[in-house]
């Protein structure tokens, strides 16, 4: 029996850096499990690095059937060339049907390069994945044409069907200590990268706070008008014990760090309450806040798209509403 046949199916790239905070791999394993059950196949997680035993066990506990491991000192730090070489060789040898990865800063560098190497397509920043019941093909829903519509992408011929997905679009499965699976160690050839040498790595202090796990999120858009107005959001967030997010125009204007960016190219949040101030509601932004339980929107344009998804809308100038809101809250809290 050709055992490599067991390694077809759904592959998920295991991004274990900052494992206990960054849950996107676990979320993709959960979705991969659902897709694999529909397709009657298996979920395999790819794990590259050095001394990564703990993560292999975690991935099995969270729903993976197989963990495919490459352990090598030169894979200890992520380097796009060496990682691409290993995963491309595996994909060419074992021919997975589907390959999923997180739409993170890492994913945005790694997966397009891998797709090019494998001569297949890549649907970036997907917000939904389903299996077509008639064809068995992966339906990949992703914002298109500047985010003005959602496109359903199908890769009819090329394999693997590759997609990147935002963190928190899917929900991870709970840790199951009784889970069992298989670990596979294919042969690897790691060539030392002659162009890039990692001297040391240091963890960057997070500046976006704990945005993705926050129960209350205050988001500011360009409609706030100035950096000074945007700064008021931090005061509001402090009063409400929340976190501050931003839209792309705000980040571009330098009012907020990239770490606070929400939406298609930023983070996805699922708070209990989201207050969106001075945001029009462009699709690029709203794909990151779809999971919010309650949305309160403030905008001067009564026809702004944000009001279509808001539970409560307030039409008014942000510069007038925000100080009033702060004043009221300061008295009550």
């Amino acid at each position, binding site marked *: 029996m050709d*055992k*490599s046949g067991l390694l077809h199916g759904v592959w998920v790239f295991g991004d274990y850096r900052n494992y*206990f905070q960054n849950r996107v791999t676990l979320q993709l394993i959960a979705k991969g499990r659902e897709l694999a059950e529909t397709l009657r196949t298996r979920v395999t997680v790819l794990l590259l690095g050095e001394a990564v*035993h*703990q993560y*292999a*066990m*975690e991935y*099995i*506990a969270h729903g993976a059937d197989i*963990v495919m491991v490459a*352990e090598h000192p030169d894979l200890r730090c992520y380097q796009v060339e060496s990682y691409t070489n290993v995963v491309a*060789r*595996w994909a060419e*040898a*074992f021919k997975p049907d589907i390959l999923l990865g997180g739409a993170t800063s890492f994913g945005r560098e790694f997966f397009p390069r891998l797709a090019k190497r494998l001569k297949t397509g890549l649907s970036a920043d997907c917000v939904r994945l389903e299996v077509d019941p008639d064809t068995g093909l992966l339906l990949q829903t992703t914002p298109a044409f500047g985010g003005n519509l959602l496109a359903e992408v199908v890769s009819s011929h090329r394999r693997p069907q590759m997609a990147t997905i935002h963190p928190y679009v899917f929900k991870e499965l709970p*840790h*199951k*200590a*009784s*889970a*069992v*699976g*298989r*670990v*596979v*160690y*294919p*042969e690897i050839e790691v060539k030392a990268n002659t162009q890039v040498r990692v001297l040391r790595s240091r963890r960057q202090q997070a500046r976006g706070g704990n945005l993705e796990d926050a129960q209350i999120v205050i988001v500011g858009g360009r409609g706030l008008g100035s950096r000074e107005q945007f700064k008021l959001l931090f005061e509001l967030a402090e009063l409400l014990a929340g976190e501050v997010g931003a839209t792309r125009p705000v980040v571009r204007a330098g009012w907020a760090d990239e770490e606070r960016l929400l939406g298609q190219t930023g983070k996805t949040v699922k708070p209990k309450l989201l207050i969106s101030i001075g945001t029009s509601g462009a699709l690029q932004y709203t794909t990151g806040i779809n999971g919010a339980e309650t949305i309160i929107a403030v905008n001067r344009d009564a026809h702004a798209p944000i009001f279509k998804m808001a539970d409560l809308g307030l039409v008014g100038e942000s510069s007038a509403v925000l100080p009033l809101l702060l004043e009221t809250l300061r008295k009550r809290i």
Partner: protein
Amino acid sequence: MEFRESPISAHHNYLVNGMLAQGFVVGDPSSKDHFFFLADVVLQGETRPRISARLMDEDSHPLLELKVNRIGENPGKCSIESAFAGYRIRCSSGDVLIEVRTEAFANGYLTRIKARLFDEHGHLRVETRDESIWIHGEEYLFLAGPLPEGRAVRRK
């Protein structure tokens, strides 16, 4: 493409042949007087490894029997002592025969074994390299579940 594989558990594994494995056996535990080494599957709720063995010295003399981490027959007058995160077994000469150390992760356990073991023919069967135990020869098996006592092991 060639690959190696083994069954693993989310709860506890051993490091063997550079791989994770939830359990493995070298030799046949059902034999009466032959060498064997069994690192049995550790189920949820237990945190210690389950090591059983019949060990010989380089000249094929029996040293001791180990039954789930406890010394049984002990013609070699070996001794067991606690060690960091595990235990150590010494021969009467004072040399360390086996060292077992279990590392606790956030949600699971990994046991590393250091040993240099010989079978009844004086052949080297197990030794340690790079933090992992390595098995010599073909006669070993990865376990997909706990090994029932006295069950013969299929020879590879």
